[in-house]
């Protein structure tokens, strides 16, 4: 089972701990500009904070754009052979997500390799708000699926008392699906 990094922008505070954790662990250097993950911030319309990091695409545009064929895939992780890289940055341009980075001190572009495929990416470990996750591939899309499913339901609410405390319960009343007939027949 492959796992990859998922970001939840709604949870990101923009603290950049992911950046500094990445750089300091991978390169023993305290420089967030040498990280393979970066937070992009937009304000105020709309307010967005989003860590941008490699998706380990199956049909990786960086890989096919590389003129010297030094980008390769190993166990599902897209990596760069540093020796043959000519530093042309064609891969950086090709990435549709802007998830490869360039630093003036380093000729080879900075790209996430899931902490050398160690099974424990540092950004995931250090994120204080749970905005960066390391998940099995089949889980991707589940959140959207759930939201989409919920949007079809007919939510109702009741209030009741439990142990003297007022409580609320949301439920889907599948019997009272007004105006929507799921059987195909007439109501």
């Amino acid at each position, binding site marked *: 089972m492959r796992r990859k990094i998922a970001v939840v922008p709604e949870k990101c*505070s923009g*603290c950049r*701990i992911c950046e500094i954790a990445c750089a*300091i662990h991978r390169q023993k250097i*305290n*420089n967030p500009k040498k990280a393979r993950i970066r937070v992009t911030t937009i304000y105020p319309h709309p307010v967005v904070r989003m860590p941008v990091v490699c998706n380990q695409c199956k049909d990786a545009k960086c890989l096919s754009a590389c003129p010297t064929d030094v980008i390769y895939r190993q166990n599902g992780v897209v990596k760069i052979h540093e020796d043959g890289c000519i530093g042309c940055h064609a891969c950086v341009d090709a990435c549709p997500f802007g998830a490869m980075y360039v630093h003036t001190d380093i000729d080879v572009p900075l790209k996430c390799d899931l902490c050398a495929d160690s099974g424990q990416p540092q950004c995931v470990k250090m994120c*204080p708000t749970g905005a960066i996750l390391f998940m099995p591939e089949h889980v991707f899309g589940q959140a959207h699926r759930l939201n989409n499913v919920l949007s079809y339901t007919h939510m109702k609410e009741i209030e009741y008392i439990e142990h003297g405390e007022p409580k609320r319960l949301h439920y889907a009343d599948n019997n009272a699906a007004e105006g929507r007939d799921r059987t195909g027949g007439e109501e």
Partner: protein
Amino acid sequence: MKQHNGGYFRKILHIDMTTGSSRTEAVDDEFIESFIGGRGFAIKLLWDNLAKNNGRVDPLGPENMLVVAAGPLTGVYLPSSGKNSFASISPATGLFGDSSMGGGFGVELRQAGYDAVTIVGKAPELSYVFIDDNLVSIVPCPELKGKGNLETEGRIRDNLGDHDVKVASIGIAGENLVRFACVTSDWSRNAGRTGIGAVMGSKNIKAIAVRGQQDLPVANVDKVIEISEQAYKELGAHNMMGHWQKQGLMGVVDYANMMGILPTYNFRDTHWEKSKNINGKTMLASHKIGNTACFGCPMCCGNINLVKEGKWAGTVTEGPEYETAAMLGSNLGVDNFASILRGNHLCDELGIDTISTGNLIAVVIEGYEKDLLTLDDLDGKPVTWGDDDRIMELIEQIAKCESIGATLALGAKGVLERWPQLKDIVLHVKGLEQSAYDCRGASSMALAYGTSDIGAHHTRAWTVGKELEMGADWGIEEKVDLVIYHQHIRSLFDMFGVCRLPWIELGFHEDFYAELYSEVVGRQYSLDDLLVKSQNLYNMTRAINVKLGASKSDDYPPARTFIPIHSGPLAGKVCDKDEYEKMLALYYEKRGWDEQGNPQIACD
């Protein structure tokens, strides 16, 4: 061989706006060893500039120096390392002034390779300074005149074609030399106090843009990783962490109200029956849309709020935190949370400090209520508690120096010069308006405000909580000791360039910082070693202030401190004048200053 292998670039950038020139200066071991960084470097640089100008500096004159300095721990892999200091001679007080800014500006400045930047002179036209690693340019920007902070930041980024450039700017208030104008970065992170924005305005500097790529020097990287990750782990496991991430400093509204220190109606009351309308729960229930954090901080205390309906609909603001909610809320009798958000947004965009603004507008309302100000003084437009429309108008008038705003823009000192009859209702020390903690129930806090080098600001020594919770039987010695300890330990945070909140709010131990500093610079220091430097720094700041005319008479809290609270949990409490005199005398003695508060350091 140099004494420190990490922590410093050992380089200061000096910029002269008049000539448009810049140069770098190497710093030596002695400078580093004595002043650590951040506020420490700033004070020494201002001290030297004062000496160069024969002890006289007009805060708004070209000879005044603006220092921007992050610390040796700014941007380092450790919790909450995103702070830097803006310091100068304050146009609000005429004395030393500084304000600490969060966000990421300081990190970027260090990555450009400078331990501090000084700016003197005055540009021929409105300009921004662009520090691009070792390239420094001054870019005229007359098109940004009068623009708000948000627009300015965005347009400079667009101009430079780089979304990641950090920008610290002033709004129209800074251009207009409002004495409590702030400097804003990362959209709404402010160096809010002591009017540093006006110093920038006086130099025709609309903004400082910075971009840096360099590695931050750290001597023992592995050790830093080990200590810091333990720290992140401890903070993450703290039982208040969830509350902090949700509410940030907004949780303090309920605390302050419960303790009886919430400024209400210009500090007349200290408890408000409507405080529920302006607390963190109200924010969460109806306005909050996101979190924001300074660099490296797991606490993400910044609240991003949106007004979704009503007359201020569409207003987005980063904030409020406690000070703003209290000063633009309870202190003005405003119980509509959306109005606080609107006021917060206006202050950020126009570039004025919410504490001073809320303080001075409250003075106007009370002055008018008590017939100390006439309708004419108010330009024929009355204002009462909670009148949010008129309050928003006043905020704009202050920033634009229009109508009564032109007087309020001069700060507490200017207001009292024009209207001396308000002397009992303007809450200030040394000309800086009081922060949002009433100090009558805790006389150590009165001493903290009175002896603070920059005026009545809470972050120099926030002792009010501790005294109210634990100090019922404290004698004056314990109170004086606590104030002095806070003034030293908190200076240290500003010298390191880190935030104090993990320490004061989540109980994080101060020894941690000494240990980390040692590993970052590659030389061992104990907390006591560092506190001695902090003490020396406090003496030097005092010497600067004495040189600039401060005396014992400036070391008293506002007049209202000596009038009993009439309602709420602390009803009847008051700071006793005799006790204050005794505390002040003991404070001077413990600091080794003479009876008039003069330090034993040459003021020449």
